[in-house]
């Protein structure tokens, strides 16, 4: 080792860096400056616009905004509107069916895929590809598949079951269920991926310990593994609920809200009143209601989950 090295006198390295008060101040402000535009955008384009929409919903605006105060007239009109009620009840049917089926299918597929499957990566990517597609594409494809003339019905007829009818797409009673079918096809693989990631995150030794204790595999799943996936259920639920409330494209492509308005959802309702029927005030009121639905679903869920995690 060279002992003189570090006491050499010629070390320019030791000279203090160029002093520049102004640069230091700027540097201290840079992080805030960098975040500021996004912050302002969020303030204006999210919070400000929510407020603006709220204001619009209290006005009699039709084709153009008109800032007279109309009280809750638009909300009254909204809740007198049969189509809105249809949209809400469709949302309940669609949201419930979509979420429950996606969770069940996702969990089942994840558990199956977790059995040391050969070609797991390949299978997983097949389950997931619909997620890369636009809802419009999905809607178009399923519209064709569910088409009563040439679609599944014809296929089953060709197989020899000539009495089979399958016309949900044009049956006002059932049209909303076609949306569930297509939405589940698109999103269940994603839920599977979330569950699979959750399963992979479980500590192996817990399962080994349970096996040593003599628990059977189904028991281990029921009592240990699935309960420990609680956070995944939680986040999947949030995402699915969110997708359900926002669902718009799929309905537009698959049924366009029809037949009649039997498969309308709040999102399509809002679009058609705000942008095609020139009822801005009513559209704004329905948008506010959608926001409230999201808040009403997500906030209690988040709250209870946060309380749980704080207690234990």
């Amino acid at each position: 080792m060279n002992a003189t090295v570090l006491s050499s006198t010629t070390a320019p390295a030791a000279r203090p860096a160029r002093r520049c008060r102004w640069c230091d101040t700027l540097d201290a402000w840079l992080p805030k400056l960098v975040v500021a535009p996004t912050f302002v955008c969020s303030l204006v384009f999210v919070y400000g616009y929510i407020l603006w929409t709220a204001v619009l919903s209290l006005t009699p605006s039709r084709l153009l905004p008109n800032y007279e105060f109309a009280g809750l007239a638009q909300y009254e009109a909204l809740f007198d509107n049969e189509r809105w009620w249809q949209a809400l009840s469709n949302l309940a049917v669609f949201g419930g069916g979509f979420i429950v089926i996606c969770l069940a299918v996702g969990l089942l597929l994840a558990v199956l895929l977790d059995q040391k499957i050969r070609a797991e990566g390949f299978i997983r990517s097949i389950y997931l590809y619909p997620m890369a597609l636009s809802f419009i594409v999905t809607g178009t494809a399923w519209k064709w598949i569910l088409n009563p003339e040439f679609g599944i019905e014809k296929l089953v007829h060709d197989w020899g079951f000539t009495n089979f009818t399958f016309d949900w797409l044009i049956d006002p009673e059932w049209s909303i269920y076609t949306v569930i079918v297509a939405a589940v096809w698109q999103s269940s693989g994603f839920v599977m991926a979330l569950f699979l990631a959750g399963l992979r995150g479980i500590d192996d030794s817990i399962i080994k310990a349970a096996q040593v204790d003599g628990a059977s595999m189904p028991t281990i799943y029921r009592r240990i593994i699935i309960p420990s996936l609680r956070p995944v259920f939680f986040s999947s639920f949030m995402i699915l609920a969110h997708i359900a409330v926002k669902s718009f494209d799929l309905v537009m492509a698959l049924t366009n809200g029809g037949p009649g308005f039997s498969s309308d959802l709040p999102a399509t309702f809002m679009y058609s009143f705000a942008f095609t029927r020139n009822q801005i005030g009513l559209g704004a009121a329905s948008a506010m209601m959608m926001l409230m639905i999201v808040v009403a679903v997500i906030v209690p869920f988040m709250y209870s989950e946060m309380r749980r995690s704080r207690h234990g």
Partner: protein
Amino acid sequence: MGALSIRNVRKSYHGNEILKGIDLEIDKGEFLILVGPSGCGKSTLLSMIAGLDSVTSGEIRIGDRVVNDLSPKDRDIAMVFQSYALYPNMTVRENISFGLQIRKVPAAEQARIVERVANTLQIGHLLDRKPSQLSGGQRQRVAMGRAISREPSLFLFDEPLSNLDAKLRVEMRTEIKLLHQRMGTSIVYVTHDQIEAMTLGDKIAVMKAGEVQQFGTPQEIYDNPANLFVAGFMGSPSMNFIPAKVEAVGSGYGVKLESGQRTHVFPVPGGDGKLKAWEGREVLFGIRPEQITHKSESRLGLPQFQTAEMPIRLTEPTGPDTMVLVPINGKDVVCRVHPAHAGQPGESMELMFDLSKSVFFDPASEQRIA
């Protein structure tokens, strides 16, 4: 002129006082150890010296400059982190020269410095590797290389060895000490390992809950702990604290110890003045394991040595010594005896107490009495 002086430095986060008035001062070339239990504020203090954190009040001087408002780059310091914090995307060479490059050191000069540093730390063959291709010890060296390349006037180390395995830690400890001897640069070194503290430091500041409990040389702190906390923190195995009553013995005072069925009163040399006020009351009698050994004939009769026969509860051989546990006043007391003299559990053995370095604490305030 001191190399570093810290005057009444305080730090609060959201109204929580983390550092409660720190005063420390070291001379040029001194090796200062900050030691204390986890969460006592060592890293916070170090970050404030480095300029990574601002002080709430107080003053920090490095050399002759008050640096409170200087940014890290202007403080003429270098720092080695616990996780090494090597830039993962750069080679070892680039890691070492990054700081030089920013300071606009000419390329040729940079190359010379890297070379010298690499020689000093024997990492020449690693210069073109990425940190991910290095072992823990090698990363440690690179991190030190990065620090010394700039030849700062003060080095800051935050638990640099705690990610190494035991053997490597001892090696690197020696190497850091050699490096310090050679360079003569002042160092502030955080650790919670009291052996590191004892072996490396010129000065040790023992901290607890944001306060310096004691500041002194390693020997002072070891022999003359200011309070119960310092006495218990420094030394391994740690000092025995035996609750004991003070009694008058002859012209002086002593402590009353019960073990097995027997009671002993050991006179404390030189304890007269300070123990007088405690006559009849209970104190904590502190004695280090190495001050309780097997009986040695040659020392018999010296006034500071007392012998007593005590029952053995447990023995723990460590190799060079065997730790023998004996009950005294209801506490298990660790004694460090030569393996050849250690008895078996269930037996009893004669132990010799060296009372010259024993210390006494007020059980309520935990402050030193004598």
